[in-house]
């Protein structure tokens, strides 16, 4: 039987050669000894004071060494430049380098908004976010020496929304719908009209309630525990911060590409953009729709069968009318199977607006290196499930109908105001009633 030579040192050239020629190691008994019984051999030799040279042991050591080395090579984390926006704007121009423009814009933004670990507010500008909250959300996860929490955003949000709030977190590719990209400053579920920014309460509601059927969780448990009670408020501030930062970056890139304005902090035009974006966010509360209250007949109708049927009939006629055009997307029965198909604004931004057909992989794949995800059609709600991403209360559904869902093909319904054709508030409530009743038809 072939024996191990116990006199050789552990890490000898002989050992390395032996590991490299493992498949040629002699007889079955040796295989058993060398591959399947390393522990016994190791222990016997170790106990006898001899050196050990089991190839498995050497492999294990190398593996651990590799793992340790891989852990030491981390790179400094930083905000990801908005290369996708730059690439979509410069697509037709061979002279402009999208990566270079995005990099310049990122450097400009850093002078105003700081880094991932040390965010700051542009000097001389009225704060529209609470920077103490932003500081708590930024940086790595953990607690400071005074036990104050830090890195709240990385703890709860970064896996999906990414470090920059660009919706390109590690898990983003696997989710449907894709995580929101905050950098457009566009939010779906809010109480303000299309084109306006969401209020703090709107963002708080989404964080608190979550979005059913999607990866967006409810952070209700945090607010209900004393120690994490302020986490949602802080996250709202950080989302506002990332949105403002991202939108300024986007618009600076647009100015640079379209108007040739240099990406410098002292550029007057870019400073105007910064002020405009901040002003829009500051004015959000005054743009909000007052919380709609359902009329008395709305809540009492289910107990009156005749009234109930009448409301369903009326709601159905609104649902199928040309004015609302609900059927086009949601289908005749409200199952979300309408004929109209469209993409959301986040997708159109870098596809249709950049001259790319999202249906053709060859075309859209050219944007993949910049962070583009496969274009997916916006999915109209299937009312039969009785779930509404923006909230299932009558008031929330009323808001979705009246205000639309920004960034998606869902438009606001025309309201009968100042002799304009449209639905009256009562008619909208009838439509809400009908939509809510569709759940029972599944």
């Amino acid at each position, binding site marked *: 039987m072939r024996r191990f030579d116990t006199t050789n040192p552990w890490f000898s050239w002989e050992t390395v050669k032996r590991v490299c020629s493992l498949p040629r190691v002699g007889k079955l008994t040796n295989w058993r*000894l060398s591959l399947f019984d390393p522990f016994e051999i190791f222990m016997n030799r170790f106990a006898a004071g001899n050196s050990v040279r089991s190839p498995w042991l050497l492999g294990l050591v190398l593996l651990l060494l590799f793992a340790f080395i891989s852990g030491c090579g981390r790179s400094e984390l930083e905000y990801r430049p908005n290369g996708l926006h730059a690439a979509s704007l410069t697509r037709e121009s061979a002279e402009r380098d999208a990566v270079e423009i995005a990099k310049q814009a990122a450097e400009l933004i850093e002078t105003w908004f700081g880094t991932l670990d040390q965010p700051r507010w542009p000097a001389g500008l009225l704060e529209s976010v609470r920077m103490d909250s932003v500081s708590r959300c930024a940086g790595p996860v953990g*607690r400071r020496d005074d036990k104050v929490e830090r890195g709240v955003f990385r703890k709860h949000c970064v896996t999906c929304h990414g470090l920059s709030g660009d919706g390109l977190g590690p898990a983003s590719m696997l989710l449907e719908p894709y995580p929101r990209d905050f950098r457009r400053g566009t939010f779906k579920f809010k109480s303000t009209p299309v084109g306006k920014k969401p209020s703090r309460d709107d963002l708080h509601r989404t964080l608190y309630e979550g979005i059913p059927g999607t990866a967006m969780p409810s952070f209700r448990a945090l607010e209900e525990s004393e120690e994490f009670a302020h986490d949602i408020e802080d996250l709202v501030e950080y989302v506002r911060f990332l949105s403002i930062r991202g939108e300024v970056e986007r618009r600076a890139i647009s100015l640079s590409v379209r108007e040739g304005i240099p990406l410098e902090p002292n550029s007057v035009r870019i400073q105007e953009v910064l002020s405009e974006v901040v002003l829009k966010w500051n004015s959000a509360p005054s743009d909000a729709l007052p919380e709609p209250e359902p009329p008395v007949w709305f809540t009492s109708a289910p107990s009156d069968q005749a009234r109930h049927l009448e409301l369903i009939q009326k709601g159905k006629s609104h649902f199928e009318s040309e004015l609302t055009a609900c059927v086009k997307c949601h289908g005749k029965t409200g199952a979300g199977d309408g004929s109209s198909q469209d993409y959301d604004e986040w997708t159109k931004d870098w596809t249709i607006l950049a001259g790319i057909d999202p249906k053709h992989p060859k075309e859209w794949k050219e944007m993949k290196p910049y962070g583009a995800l496969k274009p997916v059609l916006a999915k109209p709600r299937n009312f039969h*499930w009785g779930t509404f991403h923006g909230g299932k209360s009558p008031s929330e559904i009323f808001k979705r109908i009246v205000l639309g869902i920004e960034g998606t093909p869902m438009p606001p319904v025309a309201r009968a105001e100042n002799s304009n054709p449209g639905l009256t508030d009562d008619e909208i409530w009838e439509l809400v009633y009908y939509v809510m009743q569709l759940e029972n038809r599944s």
Partner: protein
Amino acid sequence: MSSEVKFNFVKLWGWLAALFIFPLIWVGGLVTTHDAGMAVPDWPGTYGYNLFLYPFWTWLYGPFDLLIEHGHRLLGSWVGLLVIFLCIAAWRQESRRWYRWACVGLLGAVIAQGLLGGFRVVLDERTIAMIHGCGGPMVFAYACFVALASSSDWKNATRSLAPRGLWKLSWVLLASTVTQLILGAQLRHALPSTSPVGFMSMVHLHLTFAGVVTLAILAVALVVRKVPYAQEPALKLPSNALVGLLVLQLLLGIGTWMANYALPWSETTWSLARYVIAAKGYWESMLVTAHQATGSLLIACSTWLICRVARRQFSLAENRNSLNNPGASAALPESVSAV
């Protein structure tokens, strides 16, 4: 009964160590689930206190992340103490020299795990957290091996089986469960800078290896029911445990994905369309942690199977004898007593 018969402390401490490593893994999993690895920013102390002198009430009634992180450290210290007791007992009572060193090796592994956990904190390095997370189940499997090597089955099993199929298969199973654990750790400890493509590839690999582990366990379950293994009921126990854990693990895996990311086809059923994930919710946390802990149990059960097969398939004594005396193997009896 002879008065020379002593209480087997080696067995006691060995099993206690293995038993306490499992809750240690569970609490460690909770630490990862709640991203509480840096809840205590210093090490080896806790907020400037000695680990064992940190105020009890502040720990129990403080923030939840501090509770589990400090608890994980205390539990780790307790396991270290148990393994020290095991080493002392092994040195006093155990006649097998290799076993004594195996216990020392376990102590070294536990200390190494503790150091890795400490470096994760001191360097605030998530990659070390991942290595620490992968090391935990390995140490658990090793502790199970040490405990199993003190069992009566190890000492009394006879050499009765010839074919090598199950022996190889059980190693394939162990290798695939360990690989699956490492892949799962890559997902659990994904760095914020991980690319979506990299993460997706890891998910696909994790799913592929879930298939490999499933096939390996089903193959083991089939093989132990066939001749000649069917004559060895001792092999059925780990095999049945593996099948049970596999079913549990597959369900937990689906649940873990749902609790983290929802299903991509959520709108196919009423309940899935309505499900709202509760961030850091109790059940969600338990589900995710249980998935990771069951992975450790699968590795431990694979080790258990290997031990039982090894004691029947080959006699370790034969190897040792043949190592020392190449001509002795031919003279070995059919049944070999404890090593």
